[in-house]
Structure formats: structure tokens, C-alpha cells
């Protein structure tokens, strides 16, 4: 097997807070091939963004990677010097941040911010960069890009800012794109356009894409593989078809049930009861067990290992070992 584009091994990311050390990401491993799209889904606050920030080496000041390795094209990013990492960032790996409002520098024009990576990594002249910038903005569906280049972030709507972020991330045609909820603020027509653009680039550049999203429709449309996270851990991973057709983890199942269906108005949403455990909550066993309708004694006592469902489909759940999960074995505790 060829060297993966990105291989994350046992990533643990912790925060120093007033309440002590908290792990937001607890031993996550996955890999990504060139030209592949991996979608990460999971409950809000489960550590998706922190995982991607760890890859970028841009954790908040109180966060650190306390163990694990991140191999990008064979080199361990956690071992690189700041300068080496910088050269990779924005050039080979780029990221679209979740909060487009605060992620843009309020005092520089859109044009300035979009020209920067082009001039830096691609050594374009200011004029060339400007042209490229306009083109990029056009690609992400921003009307009148010439005008927008001269405007400041606060003068743009939320969706426009998000598209500017996307344009910036795509500017240098990276080999790995991490997109953290890239289309939340976009209407569906623009969203479709952006997703097409990402796919097109993926094809053209053989780019790897990690996409964090809550929109199962987007997942279905984009993903080659899907990784489901829960409370800082990976709970299930598989190709997109089997995840949708044959979800194994109770959490994944719950997730799919909560998707509102556009085509059927009578469809009842079925939220998963309960909430995500706290980062500092000491939980024995499976971290999902307090909300799991099928939790057994074993689930409460022991953390499940990764079981293989079939090639490329893994799940961390004791139920995988013999118990049929369609029959509730224990009363749900919420």
C-alpha cells in the first residue's frame, strides 16, 4: 500500500484549563489517501475541530498535542520545527475554519487577505495575485469580486465571508484540504457550487480532503469514507455507503435518525437523548454508554476496542461482538 497522504496515529490533544488538564481528543487514528474525501461527523463539541487544528499545528494557546503522531506525506508534523510547519501550511495543507466571522482579519480588505498566500507561496506579483484572487472569488460564487476585493470583512454577509475563507484555502491548490463546516452559512445553490469546486480540484490535483460537516446530505454527496466521532474518540469509520446503509454504532444510528428529511414533511426527528459527557468527566467503559439504549454491564465497565465489520469498516462497540443491536438489551439511561 502506498504511503497515505495523511496518517494520524493515536492523537491525544489536551487543554490546560482552570479545572486542570482536559483531553478533547483521545487517541484518534485515521488515514487519508490522495484524492480521497474523508468526512468527520459527530456531535457538536466532540473534538472534530480540535483534531483538525492539531493537524494544522494551530491549537489554541492552552492546548497541546500530548501524544500521537501525524504523518503528512511521510513526515511527522508533530516533530517539525515551526518554520518547516509554516512552509507546509497554506501551501500543501490548508484549512477552512469553522467561524468565518472571526477568522478574517477585520482591518484588511478581502483582496489583501486573499493575495497574501498567493504572493507568499506561489510567488505571484501583486497584480497577478489580484487577478487570481478575483478569479478565486468568482469560483466560489461571489458576485462582483472586483468590488469585494476592496471591501472589509464586516461589510460582507456571513456566507460571503465563508466563501472568502474557502477561496483563500483553495488559493494555493493544496494537496490536503481540511474544511471545518465549510458550507454552513451558504445557501444550497452556492453550497452545491462550492462542493463541485472542491470535487473538481480534488480530481484535478489529486487532493485529499477532510471535511467536517453536520449535513448528512453533504456527507452523502462528498464523502468517500466517513469517520464518526464521539466525545473525543473515533467510534466508527467506514466507506460512505456502508455507514449510511449499515451503521453499526448506536450513536451513528441515532445520528442518522435525527436528520430532517426534506422530502417528507411527516418525518419525525428522533434526537439522541442525553448530552455529550464533559471533557473532565471520568467515565468507565464506553463513553457513549450513559446515552446508549443498548448499554450492558460490559459497556459500563470496559472501553470497547475496535472491531472490524468488513474491510474498511470499523466500529468501537461491544455490541459488535455477538449482540444484535436492534433489540434493546437494557433500558436507556439518559
Amino acid at each position, binding site marked *: 500500500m502506498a504511503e497515505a497522504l495523511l496518517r494520524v496515529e493515536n492523537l491525544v490533544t489536551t487543554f490546560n484549563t482552570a479545572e486542570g488538564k482536559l483531553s478533547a481528543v483521545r487517541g484518534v487514528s485515521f488515514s487519508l489517501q490522495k484524492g480521497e474525501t474523508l468526512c468527520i461527523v459527530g456531535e457538536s*463539541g466532540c473534538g472534530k475541530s480540535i483534531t483538525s487544528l492539531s493537524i494544522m499545528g494551530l491549537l489554541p494557546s492552552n492546548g497541546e498535542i500530548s501524544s500521537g503522531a501525524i504523518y503528512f506525506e511521510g513526515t511527522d508534523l508533530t516533530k517539525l520545527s515551526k518554520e518547516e510547519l509554516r512552509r507546509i501550511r497554506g501551501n500543501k495543507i490548508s484549512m477552512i475554519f469553522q*467561524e468565518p466571522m472571526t477568522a478574517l482579519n477585520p482591518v484588511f480588505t478581502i483582496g489583501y487577505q486573499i493575495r497574501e498566500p498567493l504572493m507568499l507561496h506561489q510567488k505571484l506579483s501583486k497584480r497577478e495575485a489580484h487577478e487570481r484572487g478575483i478569479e478565486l472569488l468568482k469560483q466560489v*460564487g461571489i458576485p462582483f469580486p472586483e468590488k469585494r476585493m476592496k471591501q472589509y470583512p464586516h461589510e460582507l*454577509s456571513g456566507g460571503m465571508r465563508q466563501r472568502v475563507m474557502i477561496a483563500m484555502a483553495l488559493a494555493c491548490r493544496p494537496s490536503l484540504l481540511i474544511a471545518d463546516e465549510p458550507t454552513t452559512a451558504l*445557501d*444550497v445553490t452556492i453550497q452545491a457550487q462550492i462542493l463541485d469546486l472542491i470535487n473538481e480540484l480534488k480530481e484535478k490535483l489529486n487532493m485529499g480532503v477532510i471535511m467536517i460537516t453536520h449535513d448528512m*446530505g453533504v456527507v452523502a454527496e462528498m464523502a468517500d469514507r466517513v469517520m464518526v466521532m464521539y466525545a473525543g474518540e473515533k467510534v466508527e469509520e467506514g466507506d460512505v455507503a456502508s455507514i*449510511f446503509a449499515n451503521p453499526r454504532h448506536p450513536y451513528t444510528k441515532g445520528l442518522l435518525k435525527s436528520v430532517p428529511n426534506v422530502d417528507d414533511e411527516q418525518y419525525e426527528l428522533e434526537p439522541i437523548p442525553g448530552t455529550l459527557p464533559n471533557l473532565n468527566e471520568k467515565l468507565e467503559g464506553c463513553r457513549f454508554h450513559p446515552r446508549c439504549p443498548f448499554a450492558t454491564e460490559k459497556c459500563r465497565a470496559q472501553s470497547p476496542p475496535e472491531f472490524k465489520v468488513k474491510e474498511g469498516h470499523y466500529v468501537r462497540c461491544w455490541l459488535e461482538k455477538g449482540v444484535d443491536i436492534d433489540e434493546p438489551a437494557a433500558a436507556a439511561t439518559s
Partner: protein
Amino acid sequence: MSQPQQPLLKLEGVKKYYPIKGGILQRVQGYVKAVENVSLEVFEGESIGIVGESGCGKSTLGRTILGLEKATDGKIFFKNQEISNLPEKKRKTFKKEMQMIFQDPYASLDPRQRIGAALEEVFVIHTKMTKAEREERVLQLLKEVGLKEEHYDRYPHEFSGGQRQRIGIARAIALNPSLVICDEAVSALDVSVQAQIIKLLKDIQEKHRLTYLFISHDLGVVRHFCNRVLVMYLGSTVELAPSHELYANPLHPYTKALLSAIPRPKPGVKKERIRLEGDLPNPANPPKGCPFHTRCPIATERCKQERPEWKEVAPNHYVACHEVQ
């Protein structure tokens, strides 16, 4: 819903223009017409979804209704009183009844205030609750939106995107207002939490006859949540209809394009979607005639010249298009 009752909120030809400045002297060089001539009646207890292209003025409309931006023109009535030119002092009572969930939850939280204090502040402003009562209420709120007591003492930057959004929701519903403008209130939430929150919002609505203006891009959520849906394009309203009707029988070509572009959670199944071609118009200099004509697949010569009227084509189904009879 559509009984001849008095509307809770009524907009009459509301406009909001932003000046564009440039040059050394920062002279005004033109205007961005963010909201152009919007008229709308909102009745108590209903939820109106507002959808539309990003940048079409949804957030601006919301902010203008709340009085955070001064409307350039037009009138806004709330409970039959005109509020668009009310002096700041007299607004306070209405503010209690109108709340907004901001599109960017992070930026709308004071970075130096703990979440607990931020939520309590709402009660400090509008009620005479004691500290203990407030705290109890806040803890309850946190729980309702799926956060925990531990979060009470945290600062905004210590939350994930979705958690922040829930804080925004908690803050908006805290006072049991009569109107809540939800600006992409659930977009950063994962579907399971989204489902919880939507349930919560619905429950409150039933209990208190709450009215929602629900700005969203997620047409699935809108369909589930809203009675009526308003479609906007480039600052103007293009279609308004009860949701089942809109989803079943969209009339405006833009609405059609929008609905066709919804991604379905079914991998492998690719639905044919209407691609919009043509130039995106400039809001500072919107095209003559129908704002959508530059991209409209069925545009005629008339669309280029004449602005279509806002007309009721079926009961409660309004649309602004020459081609729709």
C-alpha cells in the same frame, strides 16, 4: 394561522442601504441595497422560514427589525405600534419581546464574560429576580439547550462552535419573548443536537405562542420547522408560501433552483439539479427589472425592463415573477 387576525409583526416597504465609501476622504460612492422594499405580515405563533442566497439581506432584515440598524425607509409595526422610529428609550419593552439569535455565536458573546454571567444578565436587565433565582433559571436554560452546569463558569472561547450556538439560543429564549429571529440558529449543530434544539424551540412555541423568523440555509430544517417560507433574492422577496405548498409546488424559478440543489443524505443517488448560469448581480447596482433575470432560465425581455409585482397567485402564496400567473 391565516385567520384575519392582527399581525404580530408587520413590515411595510422596509429598505436598508449601506453606503459604500472610498478614496482618501472616505466619500460615499454608492449604496449596497441590502434590503429592498420588503413587506411582510407575521402572525402570532407561526414560524416563518427565510431562505435565500447568501448575502441577499436576511441577516440585515433581522437586524433592521430589531432596530439594530436603522431602516433606510419603510415602516415596521410590532403589536400594532410603529417601532421603526421609536426613540431608543421607548424601545426597551419591545426588546424584551423581540430577541435574536445571531449568526455568529462567537462574535456575539463578550469574550470577557463567563457564560453564566452572560445569561444571567438577560434577567438582570429585564426582571427583578434575585441572584439565586437567576442562577437557577440559567442552569435550567443551559440544561434545556444541552449544555451542562460546568459550562456556567466557562468563557466563550472555551466552547466548540455548536456549543456557542446553543448559548446564543439559550440567551434568546430566556425571557420568553414573543418574537425570536433565528439567524442560522442551528447551522453549526450536528443533526442530533439540532433535532433536540428544534424540538425545544417547538415546545416553547407551543407553550408560549412564540413566533419565529427562522433564517436558514438548511431547507430540510426549514421544512420541518416552519409554517410559511419566505424566499429572498438580492434584498427583495421573491416568494412566500406555506411550507408544504412551497416544497410541493415552487413557483419562482429561483425557488425551484434552490430546492433542486438540496443534497440528500443518500450516497450514490444523484438528483439532477438546476444549475444557475449567468452573472451574479451587484447589490450596489442591481439590474433593472427583475433582480433575478440575469440568471433566470426563463427570463424574457419584459423581465429585463420591468420589476415584477408581488402578487398572491394562490391563497397565501405570493410570488414576484412575470412568468407566473
